[in-house]
């Protein structure tokens, strides 16, 4: 109950910030539109909507990391976290309270990007339904990164770190180009990180190639568990002063 009250507060804090709408919803849709226009003049099929839309939905989740990290960072710097740490809430209440409000945000992002892709001409398939389920799981990876950054860094630092993070997530995910085009160490490093696996899994799910989903999702889930674990450890440590 306390966790839900806290989640409600966090939801209001995030959704009442106009930056959430701008970066979380408008920017990914805008990029989807721009790249789909570019695809019309491309000699190969990199920017087809079927490949682009799933990748841009995953890209839009980067902003979930920003929203979570900034919220926790601001709560620390304004001593709001100190105020609620003094309350009888338990550590799990805080973590649920910070993570839960991001799920509807992720769902809105998915719907906005997918809806825009349909309007731009991507055909509807029923594979989108399990793909949405997969995206919810992937959104936890980005929530975990947000909890991690917010726990260990200040709000100002989170802003700077996010600039690097968003570049890493896009360049190393194969969102804008196929990783096999570059190959070598770049591709190896990309597949040691979870972002390319997340994009591959969602592309496969949207295409109905479910056999390709399992292994890639194992990478994503393993990273999610580890990052969440470290964030929870850090958060509990902070609670004990």
């Amino acid at each position, binding site marked *: 109950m*306390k966790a839900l*009250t*806290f989640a*409600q*507060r966090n939801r*209001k*804090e995030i959704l*009442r*910030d106009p930056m959430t709408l701008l970066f979380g919803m408008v920017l990914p849709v805008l990029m989807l539109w721009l790249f789909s226009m570019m695809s019309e003049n491309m000699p190969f099929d990199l920017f087809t909507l079927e490949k682009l839309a799933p990748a841009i939905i995953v890209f839009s989740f980067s902003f979930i990391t920003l929203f979570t990290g900034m919220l926790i960072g*601001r709560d620390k*710097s*304004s*001593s*709001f976290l*100190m*105020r*609620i*740490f*003094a*309350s*009888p*809430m338990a550590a799990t209440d805080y973590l649920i309270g910070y993570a839960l409000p991001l799920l509807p945000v992720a769902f809105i992002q998915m719907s906005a990007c997918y809806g825009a892709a349909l309007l731009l001409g991507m055909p509807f398939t029923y594979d989108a339904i399990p793909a949405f389920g997969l995206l919810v799981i992937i959104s936890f990876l980005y929530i975990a990164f947000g909890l991690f950054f917010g726990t260990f860094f200040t709000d100002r630092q989170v802003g700077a770190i996010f600039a690097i993070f968003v570049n890493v997530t896009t360049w190393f995910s194969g969102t804008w180009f196929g990783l096999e085009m570059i190959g070598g160490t770049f591709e190896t490093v990309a597949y040691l990180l979870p972002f390319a696996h997340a994009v591959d899994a969602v592309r496969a799910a949207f295409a109905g190639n479910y056999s390709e989903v399992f292994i890639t999702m194992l990478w994503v889930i393993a990273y999610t568990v580890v990052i969440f674990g470290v964030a929870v450890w850090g958060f509990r440590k902070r609670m*004990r*002063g």
Partner: protein
Amino acid sequence: MEIKIMELTKTFKDRVAVDQLTLAIGQGEFFALLGENGAGKTTTIKMLSCLMEPTSGDAIMLGDSIVENPQAVKKKLNISPQETAVARNLSVQENLEFIARIYGSTKQDAEQKAIRLMEMFGLAERAKSKGRNLSGGMERRLSIAMAMISEPEIIFLDEPTVGLDVRARLDLWQILLNLKGQITIILTTHYLEEVEALADRIGIMHKGRLQALGTLEELKHQTGQIKLQDVFLQLTAEGEST
């Protein structure tokens, strides 16, 4: 005695922040904790409000130990931190209701408490204003109202009037004077005139140790000084601290 602090100590690596603090604070008392920056005031408050585990020692808050049973202690106290700690995108009323609810109030109960507190703290006209749009004075009032809404038996006020203009400070003093006797208030501040106006007893900390304890008159008598400022300077002077 309501609060009994026994040899409370906090060390950070090789630095002793609070050194064997022993002190008792009575029920309904307005107690001021004074000290220079780094004297150990905030660390003491953090330990008493269960935000930080002591290295050694203990404090019994209304019968419960901060070491043995911090969750029970947390239900009885609340805190108004040095920074106002207000949720910036929530309205005044939402901020108050949020705190009431995490301390266990029902939705209806939280709403009624929020309305009562807004009246008490002169915030009713700004009920719908977002935290980020409040003036410094209003934000401070809201911060203290948020600490009061859980109906704590002990409240910690960490520099509650810092950054306020004279009128806002005097308004806040009046609110604090109205609370006097109803709950135990532990105040830290650098404004000595605030201590003179509000506190029943004063504890002066220096380098983590409690240097002096008593009423204003007792401290003046003890040091032979007339003004609190001189009392403070004498008790925290280097070379005379032991």
